[in-house]
């Protein structure tokens, strides 16, 4: 009849109103700075670099593939060299401009050495627009433990892969 649909709808909303005082299901907002939702494992934001033992010895070999593949070209890599000018397999500087990065994750996919991964960090507000958002090597490098913590599934898979690679000389079993 005339208006019964309206009444039905109003019943729903008033139930929501009262239930919001008793049930958590009816008050789904999270009070962000105080309480946080834990990030989902596959969540990815900005890239970071992984090192195994020490920050001086990252997995990155400065091959420059990620910098070439990066669609907005936000990665700049300078290869390190020793005293005689012979290039070394590590970056001298590794810069990512977070103000340009578009979180596509292509760097992670193309990296042949599993050195760059997407991080969960999202509170990145800074006061400076240019220099503060330009992340240098020191801010980008994070231990493998961090990676294990935020993305355990991927970390175990990749650790197993790397471990297999180091034992490579032995021929593969089966097949």
């Amino acid at each position, binding site marked *: *009849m*005339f208006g019964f649909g*309206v009444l039905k*709808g*109003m019943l*729903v*909303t*008033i139930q*929501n*109103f009262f239930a*919001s*005082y008793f049930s958590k299901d*009816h*008050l*789904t*907002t999270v*009070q962000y700075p105080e309480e946080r939702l834990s990030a989902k494992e596959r969540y990815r934001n900005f890239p970071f670099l992984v090192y195994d033992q020490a920050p001086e010895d990252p997995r990155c070999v400065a091959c420059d593939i990620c910098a070439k593949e990066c669609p907005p070209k936000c990665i700049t890599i300078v290869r390190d060299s020793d005293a005689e000018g012979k290039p070394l397999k590590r970056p001298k500087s590794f810069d990512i401009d977070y103000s340009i990065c578009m979180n596509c994750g292509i760097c992670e996919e193309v990296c042949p050495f599993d050195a760059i991964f997407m991080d969960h960090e999202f509170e990145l507000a800074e006061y400076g627009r240019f220099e503060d958002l330009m992340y240098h090597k020191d801010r980008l490098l994070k231990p493998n433990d961090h990676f294990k913590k935020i993305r355990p599934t991927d970390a175990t898979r990749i650790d197993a892969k790397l471990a297999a690679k180091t034992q490579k000389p032995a021929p593969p079993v089966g097949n």
Partner: protein
Amino acid sequence: MDQLFVNLKHSILIFAGNFLPEWAVILISILISVTAIAVFGPVTMMYLTLLERKFVGRIQNRFGPNRVGKWGLLQPLADGVKMLTKEDIVPKGADHFAHFLAPVAIVIPALLVFAVVPFGRNMVAVDLSIGILFFLALSSTTTIWIFVAAWASRNKFSLLGGLRSVAQMVSYEIPMVLSVVPVLMVVGSFSTVAIVEAQSGWNWFVLTPWGLIGFVLFFLTGVAEVNRTPFDLPEGESEIVAGFHTEYSGMKFALFYMAEFMNSFTISAIVSTVYLGGWQGPWLPGWLWLLIKSYALILVMMWFRGTLPRFRVDQLMGFAWKFLLPLALLNIFAAGVWLAFARPVNYLLSAIIVALALFILYFANRPDMPKKRVYRYAVE
């Protein structure tokens, strides 16, 4: 307790009377009433915004503002500061004078209407012999200023909003006036005080058949008069940006907001005065009863807002002219029958008339009602 504020004012006047001439005492008496209203109106408005945001938030499973102060109690002040410091933009082609005048002038009737609201026993600023008429007349002037604002902004969305508002307010004013007529017939006076006194001892008009219908009619048309959801076509955000206040910012916008909220408070107060017994009620002091009743009605308005989508223009007009108006007329007839017969019979007769009216109008409006939708792909 009931006469707390009355006694307070009285003692101030007696104190002033010791050393001031008579005219000054009268002036002070007027000033006290005016100041009380001028403070009460905007403060009510400020906290209604908070209440609305909290209530609608809870309906939508959110908290609502809760950061500024305990439970967000200082949020209105923060909003006020924000509004005051915002840039005041006047469009280049606008009629500057009218663009400035409209938001200022729209607050005046909203404040003046408070003068006839009986907040409690002896607590009415002016007991006008034409109180209800005064209220209806002043609330009808709001239309002009909305239209002036719309026209002066020189913006097509504003103008569309203004035209909608005029059409809507002119249409809903008629059932609004007619829905008060039964009460005026029964009481025999326009005075709001007399209306409240006629309802003493649980003789609330809402408890009679015609009163129930009249209450619903008056309340719905009142909601339409103050442009609140689901009747907020003049400012329908999704269709015409913000309607008549598209081009307003800062304090001028705040004034429109203030007028809207003060109007929704006064409409609730007047509805509870006319149909819900005003400040009559057991145990609690009168002014508290009136506040409880009007806030309950305001919560219903907010409840509407949290629930209902906006009307379509033709539905809006059809609802006013094809449903509310004939129902209001038949309701007057029911009230006449109620007056004409003795006690037990009249309730029965007027209930029958009201029920018949509803039934007939339901069937008469049936072709206009939305059909039950069947989604073909959902079958099977």
